[in-house]
């Protein structure tokens, strides 16, 4: 399944859980209101109208049902609230067991019938709770941290730039331009018509370098490349330049994939990309847009070093830089 299809399926499952949870919420509401508003009727139907204790217990159970109802109807966390219903069912069944043991005849028959109904409800509650818990586990998104053991990581990002596709394409095709906006790249040297030599900054480790080649390209439309030889982190990328509906701009669609190794290098890479690896690529494209639309990566006093800004949060204060800070540059 593609990533998108997986996400869609998880979403559908989550919606189903929400729907079932809400249904149980309405059941709780009905039971709770009945037990609070007409406790004597409930006691008679259940066959426990002979015990004065139940006069206090039935409304209490009703109040508890209202708590379940409130949780199930208002919270998105259906798994937690479905489990509270299962616990409540267990309490009810235990009380009913005690009541049956002390009664005979018509009252006992009524209690057995009520117990049967509660067992049925318990089964439904249990199924919903289990399903809600499972949907929660499947629905949570994988992060780069999960790839510490190594494996492929795919990143996608998109931006719209107010320049025509041939211009955006030409800027990207001149690979030496990539380090001006891509945070992790130090330098790209063109070594042939389709080949190049890339170097990246720490935390890939010192002097991480690799060769790459363009494997597919259509001028003004698309560039695809991949690393060659013994790259520490084998990687590939595709960028497509699509004319935007406004007739002036270009949609830039980027897909990068990294084959993250296990061990120390893999750990460093995972740490570098952090919890939200997509954020970095998003920021890279934001800077690409700045460069193409305004001429430069935008700097502020708080984030004065362009593409290295992200690593500096909390930032330096938003107050002018001193001469020595400015002279030292990003390494100060």
């Amino acid at each position: 399944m593609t990533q998108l299809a997986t996400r869609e399926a998880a979403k559908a499952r989550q919606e189903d859980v929400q729907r079932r949870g809400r249904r149980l919420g309405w059941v709780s509401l009905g039971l709770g209101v009945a037990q609070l508003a007409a406790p004597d009727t409930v006691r008679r139907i259940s066959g426990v109208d002979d015990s004065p204790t139940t006069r206090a217990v039935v409304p209490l159970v009703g109040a508890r049902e209202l708590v379940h109802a409130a949780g199930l109807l208002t919270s998105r966390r259906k798994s937690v609230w479905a489990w509270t219903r299962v616990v409540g069912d267990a309490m009810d069944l235990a009380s009913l067991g005690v009541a049956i043991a002390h009664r005979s005849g018509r009252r006992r028959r009524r209690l057995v019938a009520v117990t049967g109904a509660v067992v049925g409800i318990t089964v439904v509650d249990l199924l919903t709770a289990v399903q809600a818990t499972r949907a929660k586990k499947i629905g949570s998104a994988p992060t780069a941290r999960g790839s510490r053991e190594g494996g492929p990581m795919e990143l996608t990002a998109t931006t719209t730039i107010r320049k025509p596709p041939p211009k955006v394409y030409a800027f990207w095709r001149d690979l030496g331009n990539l380090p001006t906006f891509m945070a992790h790249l130090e330098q790209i040297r063109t070594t042939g018509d389709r080949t190049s030599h890339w170097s990246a900054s720490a935390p890939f480790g010192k002097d991480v370098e690799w060769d790459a080649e363009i494997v597919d390209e259509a001028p003004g439309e698309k560039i695809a490349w991949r690393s060659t030889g013994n790259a520490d982190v084998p990687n590939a990328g595709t960028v497509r330049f699509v004319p935007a509906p406004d007739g002036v701009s270009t949609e830039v669609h980027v897909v990068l994939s990294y084959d993250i190794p296990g061990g120390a290098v893999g750990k460093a890479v995972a740490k570098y990309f952090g919890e939200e690896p997509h954020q970095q690529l998003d920021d890279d494209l934001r800077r690409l847009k700045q460069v193409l639309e305004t001429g430069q990566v935008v700097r502020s006093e708080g984030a004065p070093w362009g593409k290295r800004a992200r690593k500096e949060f909390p930032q330096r204060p938003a107050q002018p830089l001193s001469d020595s800070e400015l002279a030292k540059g990003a390494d100060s």
Partner: protein
Amino acid sequence: MRANTWAGRNKVKVRDVPDPKILNERDAIVRITSTAICGSDLHLLDGYVPTMQDGDVMGHEFMGEVIEVGQGVDPGRLRVGDRVVVPFPIACGACGACAAELYSCCENSNPNAGIAEKMFGHPVAGIFGYSHLTGGFAGGQAQYARVPFADVGPLKIESDLTDEQVLFLSDILPTGYMGAEMCDIQSTDVVAVWGAGPVGQFAMDSARALGAAKVIAIDKEPYRLQMAERAGHTA
């Protein structure tokens, strides 16, 4: 230079800080002749807006004289010696939002747009002296300020209008005007403005300028109502 800086919740300090410097080619440095405190500065002061840091220079409503321009500033648009009012949102003039004249939605002027996007669900433009969420730009409650994209935002004042007559173009006059403009005022309309503070006063004047038959000020402070009456509105 001297500058008003944030020093923690409910604390500001006037401190000595370095003079601003050109960081991008289209920057200008402005010697500030007049500056204002905005009602929205209170949200920074009391810690309501996150990402303020100790030492941040505050202020987003200022004007002054251009004393330096970067090499990328079009001399046809701005030169040293020009007298300018600086609008509080920083706008690049080249993105889709700027092309649609929605300068406060500029897509390029906030280097911390990614963080803002995460927090608000959408990015916001750069703003002078208004937290790191809006870019971490030093503000204008200072002797000098750096103005990015100086060939786009700053309004040149070429007449002999005084600072006080034009300073409010930096934020609150357009804010009040926008409120009135959104009402689609007709010549038969009676317009009531709730809140006769500075923005409200400008909204009233704007409503009259846009042709309202009558403008009514509503406030609990007598001095504000008197000010509205002096301007010819009904209190």
